């Protein structure tokens, strides 16, 4: 079990081999952590890595997408601190288990650079490599 560090905030969550357990996470967003670890298409996925959330001056604008295999993840919050570095974020294609490609995004005002998830699968290329979803809605 490994504590999760939330930059500039008072958050701690624990990662286990079976899933993510959030404890008292407060990143400046009014939403409870339980609602953050959800993906569009289903419930909370299994996260096997540390997720770092930075300060969010407003509520999350979208749920997070956890990535079981540590690729591209992102957090999207509203407010000035729109992006969380590190990651976990929405998968634009509707899936949430994996973001397989993306782009760098710069917050010009803060200077933060993050990796944004652009998709979980190519639109017409079924890779057959999307991991099994373990979350439930």
């Amino acid at each position: 079990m490994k504590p999760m560090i939330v930059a500039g905030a008072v958050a701690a969550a624990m990662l286990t081999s079976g899933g993510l357990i959030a404890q008292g996470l407060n990143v400046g967003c009014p939403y409870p952590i339980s609602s953050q670890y959800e993906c569009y298409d289903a419930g909370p996925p299994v996260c096997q890595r540390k997720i770092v959330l930075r300060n969010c001056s407003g509520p999350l604008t979208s749920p997070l997408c956890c990535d079981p295999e540590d690729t591209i993840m992102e957090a999207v919050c509203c407010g000035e601190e729109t992006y969380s570095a590190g990651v976990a974020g929405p998968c634009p294609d509707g899936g949430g288990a994996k973001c397989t490609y993306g782009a760098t995004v710069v917050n010009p005002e803060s200077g933060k650079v993050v990796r944004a998830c652009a998709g979980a699968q190519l639109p017409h290329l079924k890779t057959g490599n999307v991991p099994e979803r373990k979350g439930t809605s």
Partner: protein
Amino acid sequence: MRRFSTLAMLAACAWGADQPPASVVQSSKPVTAQSPAPVAIHRGRMVDFTSVPAGMVMGPTKCDDSGAVYFRQYKPRDVYGAAIVKLDPRENRSLVINVSSIGDSSVAKAPTLRFVDFTVNGGAVYVAATNEDAKAYILKFSAGDGSFQSAISLEEKFYPMKIAAFNSGALLVAGVKTTPKPDSTSALQNDTVLIDRTGVIAKHLNAGDWGDTKGDQAVDHERLDALSMSLMEGAGTSAYLIQSSAATTLAVVGDGGTVEPPRKLRSPGEDYSAFNLRASGTSILVEYVKDLKSSGTVTEFVLYDLSLDQPVQVYRADADVGGALGCYDGRDGFTFVNNHGGHTVLMNGSLN
């Protein structure tokens, strides 16, 4: 030193004395071991584009020879659905290039045509675009007024992810293609194609593995991840491809399709990732960010000379200047896309 093809900076700005040429390194050791201390980039004038709301800037950004900057604002949940914005500081004019201007009925705009990558050269904006219905195109727009000019329909099962333009009008497009597997899924392979100035795919190049993290063992999502996060930029008769993973790898492709052996670039450190690239015929400027997956706040610009063995200059922007790099003039002038007062601005930076 030849000018950086994608920059040429703002005419109103007077830039300082020449910097010594930089170097390209074939070592994976940190750049700090033998490179100069970072030189500060100081804030210069700012051009406000009040018609362009503030926003997050998604890579890549591009710069044309007149100093105009091209970029996309991050669009949550539809990253590649963002339009291309051009900011011309000389005329304080902005321009939007999007799908709606495409008048060619052979280009399938429905259900959703997205701009995966783009580049700028010779008064044209070239866009690698894909549609959910499995069609992929290279679209050409006028950089002057944003009007649609022409489209190249790409081969089926080829998904373009990176595009660069040569001065000759030829294009280099890196992507992936699929081949069926017995289990009814598809296997991915890197594929890089050279498209001649007439729009014909002239060659399939053996340059795709530069984006491959584990050779034949690479699984698909790693391949896509590496390719989507790589950098590609054309300058003159060459295109420069950078893969940023554990080590920064540079590949150079000529406009005739020649592929030089990949070389390792000395990065600022193991925890730095390359995320922006500007190229000329003789040197490249690579912007690195530290700890992309955890903080992503410290960036450094490293100038490499393509004929030497050491990076000769490292730049770091002052706290009051920065944003997304738009242009670099090859010497001491930088232009950044930033936000100010709820608008998008171009902010100059210089070494003086």
